[in-house]
């Protein structure tokens, strides 16, 4: 969570992950499954490609008009009975939520899946104040039991196999061991149902917020999202400010794109639109609704060169196809968001000084760009961040020296060819000093380079 960022140790984290055979197998299986399902879903409906253009344009329009749209959302949500709070940073959001819960004497909160709550370190903060927080998304519940953080934004426990989950449940819930996913799901459901009924408050995220109606939109597959937001008397929704869509009519584009991009599903199992509080005569819905709109650095991103990152709708498609992510898993990235979108967003939100090793976590293969439903130019953004890292003097001095030398040689053929000759001459030494995992992977330079073969 936000307090324990280890992005600076990306190389060490990832070297360790590479050695973890069960993690690698789990990652390969899961990422490939979702990646394959996504390709199948897109191959089946050709006009989804055109829909990506539309989605990208819509999200761009939102970014261009964000302050006005937020204003509109707030006033419409307020009119529908909600209370809207603006939180400038993580601490403000945590405090707002804690105060709301304490003022109402809440002792237990049931939580729907929310990456924003991970970003602000909400669970730890509430638990330290004596409030029990129960994750109700199955994947989130698993990692909460394990004391871990999500390693994927859609599939939080993607790094775990069912045997590990079976063992965890047996130990923590004192149930007989089983690695049958159906049995395990039933156990979790039984535990959770009691929690839902006993919870004094529900805390959720939101996939989108509709400006013209003040509605929150939640996509969920397990139904827990709907339980959390409608069973307890108090519902607190936490929302990052870029999640706005102008009109309800904009939503269908994303209803079609988001589940297909995320898991390859044609449609999500539960789609909830929550507009204000429970009205007279309605049987369900929270009696009190608070919406916390989080900035936490996003206004700054919006004003900068990498603003397109805020188009992201958190589908996770980029991570499923990323060769780096599927090799090292999400925890190596050291903060809330992993994979290509994560390396960019983490660097933007937490600052280059806290995360610069992440900008190297890409081969620039472009697989992420190929699948992003809102066409975020992830590779150009990564290049932009690498440039910023270099300009801020955060690169390894040896690399800086090497690149200066390269730059001089690239514009001076004599120096360039001299460099080729020297590297040939000293190859045994270079090979030795360059280490077996770097120089050891290169072949010996030729004694007769191509330019000398040409008339």
């Amino acid at each position, binding site marked *: 969570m936000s307090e324990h960022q280890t992005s600076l140790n990306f190389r060490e984290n990832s070297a360790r992950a590479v050695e973890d055979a069960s993690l690698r197998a789990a990652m390969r299986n899961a990422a490939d499954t979702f990646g394959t399902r996504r390709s199948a879903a897109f191959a089946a409906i050709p006009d989804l490609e055109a829909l990506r253009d539309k989605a990208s344009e819509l999200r761009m329009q939102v970014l261009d008009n964000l302050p006005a749209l937020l204003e509109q959302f707030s006033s419409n949500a307020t009119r529908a009975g909600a209370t809207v709070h603006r939180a400038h940073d993580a601490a403000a959001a945590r405090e707002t939520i804690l105060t709301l819960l304490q003022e109402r004497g809440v002792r237990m909160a049931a939580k729907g899946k929310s990456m924003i709550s991970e970003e602000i370190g909400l669970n730890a903060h509430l638990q330290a104040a004596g409030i029990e927080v129960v994750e109700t998304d199955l994947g989130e519940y698993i990692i909460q039991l394990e004391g871990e953080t999500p390693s994927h934004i859609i599939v939080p426990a993607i790094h775990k196999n069912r045997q590990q989950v079976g063992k965890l449940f047996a130990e923590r819930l004192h149930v007989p061991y089983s690695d049958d996913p159906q049995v395990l799901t039933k156990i979790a459901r039984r535990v959770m149902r009691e929690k839902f009924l006993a919870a004094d408050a529900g805390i959720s995220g939101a996939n989108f917020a509709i400006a013209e109606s003040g509605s929150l939109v939640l996509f969920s597959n397990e139904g827990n999202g709907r339980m959390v937001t409608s069973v307890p008397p108090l519902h607190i929704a936490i929302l990052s400010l870029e999640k706005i869509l102008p009109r309800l009519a904009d939503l269908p584009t994303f209803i079609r794109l988001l589940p297909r991009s995320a898991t390859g599903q044609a449609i999500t199992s539960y789609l909830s639109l929550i507009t204000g509080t429970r009205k007279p005569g309605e049987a369900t819905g929270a009696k009190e609704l608070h919406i916390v709109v989080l900035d936490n650095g996003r206004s700054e991103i919006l004003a900068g060169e990498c603003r397109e990152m805020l188009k992201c709708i958190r589908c996770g498609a980029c991570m499923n196809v990323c060769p780096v992510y599927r090799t090292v898993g999400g925890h190596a990235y050291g903060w809330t968001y992993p994979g290509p979108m994560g390396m960019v967003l983490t660097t933007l939100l937490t600052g280059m000084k806290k995360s610069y090793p992440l900008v190297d976590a890409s081969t620039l293969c472009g697989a992420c760009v190929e699948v992003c439903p809102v066409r975020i130019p992830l590779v150009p953004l990564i290049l932009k961040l690498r440039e910023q890292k270099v300009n801020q003097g955060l690169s390894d001095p040896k690399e800086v020296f090497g690149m200066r030398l390269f730059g001089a040689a690239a514009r001076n053929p004599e120096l360039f060819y001299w460099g080729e000759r020297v590297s040939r001459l000293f190859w045994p030494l270079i090979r030795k000093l360059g280490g077996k995992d770097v120089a050891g*992977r290169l072949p010996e330079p030729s004694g007769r380079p191509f*330019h000398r073969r040409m008339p």
Partner: protein
Amino acid sequence: MRVQLFGTCMVDSLFPEVGDATLRLLEHFGVDVAYPHGQTCCGQPAFNAGYRAQARGAAEHFLSRFTGSDPIVTPSGSCAAMVKHHYPELFQDAPQLLEKANGVAARIFEMSQFLVRVLHAHESTYRGTGTLTYHASCHLTRTLGVKEEPLLLIAALRGMQFVPMPDASRCCGFGGTFMAKLPEISCAIADEKAQSIMESGADTVTGCDSACLMNIADALKRRGSTVRVVHLVQLLAEGI
């Protein structure tokens, strides 16, 4: 027809035989090949690592060597992509250089692209034996959009049976300076690529980027594989 040959730094120093094969193929099709002397590197290592000034220096040098209006041909998907897509970006603030950059961007071809689109070389046949699989390198397929051309040429290799590998367009893990900065991940990704190649059952693997092929050859060697790794232009030149 006349072309200018951009050998690339990798071919120049590490794989000159790829340059030889490129030349031989072009001449086979009656192309008059000029080699602008003093050419160095397209600047990609610096560009991809965030060293914009150095990349721009390399690009300016390229522009000074590759003048005129003949097509430029290069046996590398990623170098062609650099010239075509990133050179114009580098000179947005310098109109004269931008014009030149747009010029080279418009006339650069990756070799398989030139063979198919301009020379229709896939309508000829080439001799070959054994089984062949193909690695679709990242910048070739995703930046340059060259997907079909290498496959058309492979289909023209008579006597060679094509066996696709799983996830042919997944990255090999090279990534330029990535291989040196994060070697553990780079090797792990390359190992998976080697695994895919071995699963295909082919006795030869080919591609259109020497850097990726180099990385793949190393990963295969680590696994004790005897699969031959060879640039597509070499296979074609051998089979003329």
